[in-house]
């Protein structure tokens, strides 16, 4: 009997994997549902004896089984997209059945938690510190230092909180871990709990990920004997982007509005319900079993500068070969977009690449030599964030993208501080005026003689641009968290690199006159 392996990852399902699986089953094959290899442009991808076929439709099944399918891609493992990757976190991707304890154990599962228990808590943290692992949620804070703070904090009750809110556009690596290799995440949390002395872990998953939620719940039930006495529970978000910010997430877990908390106190000392809490991203925790099983050095050997280990990079948007690419830090942006991603899906020239989600900068092709590294991107007025890349072709309108960044901030602001809550709304209005080249006359109130400081002369385009820069400055330095604080990155980068989209290269139209 022919065994056909097809992914049940949401990206495969969205492309019709269930129908293809059903077609193979009714042709008499045994269908195994596995995780995805991460070559999403080939989904639904079927694997028979190591050979791949995709992207398939049910009508292709007969030809595949007859050996005459034009959609054959050869041996999957040798596919150039996979051959150059260094898969530590995604070592099982495409290879195992997500909820099979058998597959997990056969591929090195539970070796990390076993070694941690042999080493003891302190040496476990030392391994994580020695690996150089930095938080993958965006800020890049060293995981070992965070764990040490929590381990040293006093008190019998501590928590591990896994941040699975993954709200950035262009990111899906957390989702792929939760749907494709949930035991690895659970093992990473159990190691963290053992290391810092926490008995309970929560995974806060966004509600937009129903498949991840179901898989995690099943996996947690199956994993109990392997992680006891540590307990894990899934909690579901409710459609709020800012709840990915760690203190907002903690408030949400406590059943409150997802408002950001002022720091200090650090969550490591006063986190969930006021107890010492490790908050780590899915990818951070998922990297831990590898580090414990293979040793800190094996992880730290890979990387670039102070960015050690591998980064699961997500290629998305208008890109030919979209999917997951895990590789050591240091690969350049241009390699990712052009060589690996194959350029745009539309075949048109690349105009901009947004790196790091809605708070990340837009990079022009001139930035393609940038190495993927936290510090290098920061130096180029950008950020890596959760390592999602959105590629835009030359039809993109960059002032429209800047407007979107402001409107997204306005929609998702938690409302705690003025530069973000009000500034983002004023930013949308301002960019609308810039796009309309309308300029602005003083309003009724501004024209009143009492309003000494209000400007009486109409604003022209140049004044409006200056005002936008000024507003961005205020948001950058006056916001409590990175939602308000980083929204200026996409706005200012769009303005800097594509001024023509804001009407700057064209002569100042004095429409306000």
């Amino acid at each position, binding site marked *: 009997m022919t065994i056909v392996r097809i992914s049940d990852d949401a990206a495969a399902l969205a492309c019709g994997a269930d129908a293809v699986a059903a077609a193979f089953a009714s042709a008499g094959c045994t269908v195994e549902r596995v995780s995805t290899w991460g070559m999403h442009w080939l989904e639904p991808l079927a694997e028979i004896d190591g050979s791949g076929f995709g992207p398939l439709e049910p009508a292709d099944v007969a030809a595949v089984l007859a050996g005459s399918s034009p959609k054959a891609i050869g041996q999957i493992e040798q596919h150039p997209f996979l051959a150059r990757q260094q898969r530590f976190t995604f070592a099982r991707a495409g290879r195992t059945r997500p909820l099979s304890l058998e597959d997990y154990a056969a591929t090195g599962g539970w070796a990390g938690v076993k070694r941690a228990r042999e080493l003891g808590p302190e040496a476990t943290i030392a391994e994580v510190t020695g690996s150089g692992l930095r938080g993958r949620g965006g800020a890049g804070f060293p995981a070992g230092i965070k764990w040490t703070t929590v381990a040293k904090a006093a008190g019998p009750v501590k928590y591990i909180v896994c941040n699975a809110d993954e709200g950035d556009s262009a*990111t899906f690596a957390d989702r792929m871990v939760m749907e494709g290799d949930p035991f690895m995440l659970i093992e990473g949390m159990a190691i963290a709990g053992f290391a810092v002395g926490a008995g309970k872990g929560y995974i806060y998953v966004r509600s937009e990920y129903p498949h991840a939620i179901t898989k995690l719940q099943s996996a947690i039930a199956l994993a109990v004997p392997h992680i006891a006495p540590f307990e894990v529970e899934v909690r579901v978000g409710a459609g709020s982007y800012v709840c990915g910010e760690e203190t907002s997430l903690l408030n949400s877990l406590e059943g409150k509005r997802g408002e950001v908390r002022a720091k200090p106190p650090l969550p490591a000392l006063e986190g969930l319900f006021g107890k010492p809490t490790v908050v780590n991203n899915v990818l951070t925790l998922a990297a831990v079993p590898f580090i414990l099983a293979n040793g800190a050095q094996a992880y730290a050997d890979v990387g670039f500068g102070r960015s050690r280990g591998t980064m699961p990079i997500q290629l998305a948007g208008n890109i030919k070969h979209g999917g997951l690419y895990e590789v050591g830090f240091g690969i350049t942006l241009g390699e990712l977009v052009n060589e690996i991603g194959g350029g745009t899906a539309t075949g048109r020239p690349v105009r901009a690449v947004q790196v790091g989600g809605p708070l990340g900068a837009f990079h022009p092709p001139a930035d393609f030599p940038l190495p993927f590294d936290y510090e290098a991107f920061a130096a180029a007025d950008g950020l890596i964030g959760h390592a999602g890349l959105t590629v835009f072709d030359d039809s993109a309108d960059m002032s429209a993208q800047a407007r979107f960044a402001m409107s997204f901030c306005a929609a998702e602001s938690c409302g705690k501080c003025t530069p973000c809550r009000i500034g983002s709304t004023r930013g949308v209005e301002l960019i609308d005026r810039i796009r309309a080249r309308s300029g602005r006359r003083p309003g009724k109130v501004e024209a009143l003689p009492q309003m000494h400081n209000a400007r009486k002369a109409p604003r022209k385009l140049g004044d409006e641009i200056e005002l936008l820069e000024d507003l961005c400055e205020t948001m950058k330095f006056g916001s409590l968290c990175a939602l308000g604080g980083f929204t200026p990155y996409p706005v200012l980068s769009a303005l800097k690199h594509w001024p023509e989209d804001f009407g700057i290269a064209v002569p100042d139209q004095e429409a306000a006159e």
Partner: protein
Amino acid sequence: MNDAQELDGILAAHHGREGALLPILHDVQAAHGFISEDAVRTIAKALNLTRAEVHGVVSFYHDFREAPELRPVLKLCRAESCQARGVEAMVAALPDNSRVAVETVYCLGLCSVGPAAMVGDTVHGRLDTARLGALVESLA
């Protein structure tokens, strides 16, 4: 079982759970389709919160509805990666269909196979104008 009994059942199921409010609201919305004023009152009482506190939570999160949506709902992603794949033009070309609620969401994690949408728990990728139009029609 009427709504009030159902709500009591939900509250009993979450009794003593830490940070129970969001799980309760999710269950209530799943059962009733929205969070009514009556439900807010009952939940507040059970959790020893004020109605204002519960209302504040309900209104903070995009997922929670304060009024029922009786039409089928299609959640369409309009975040950056789906924009880069042309979702805005598709929205502009959507036929008027008042029998389907097309709601905007920001990212479904399907950004490599966008434009993407979700109906219930069913995900749809690689949409274009025709496929989105057909999907909306199929729900109407």
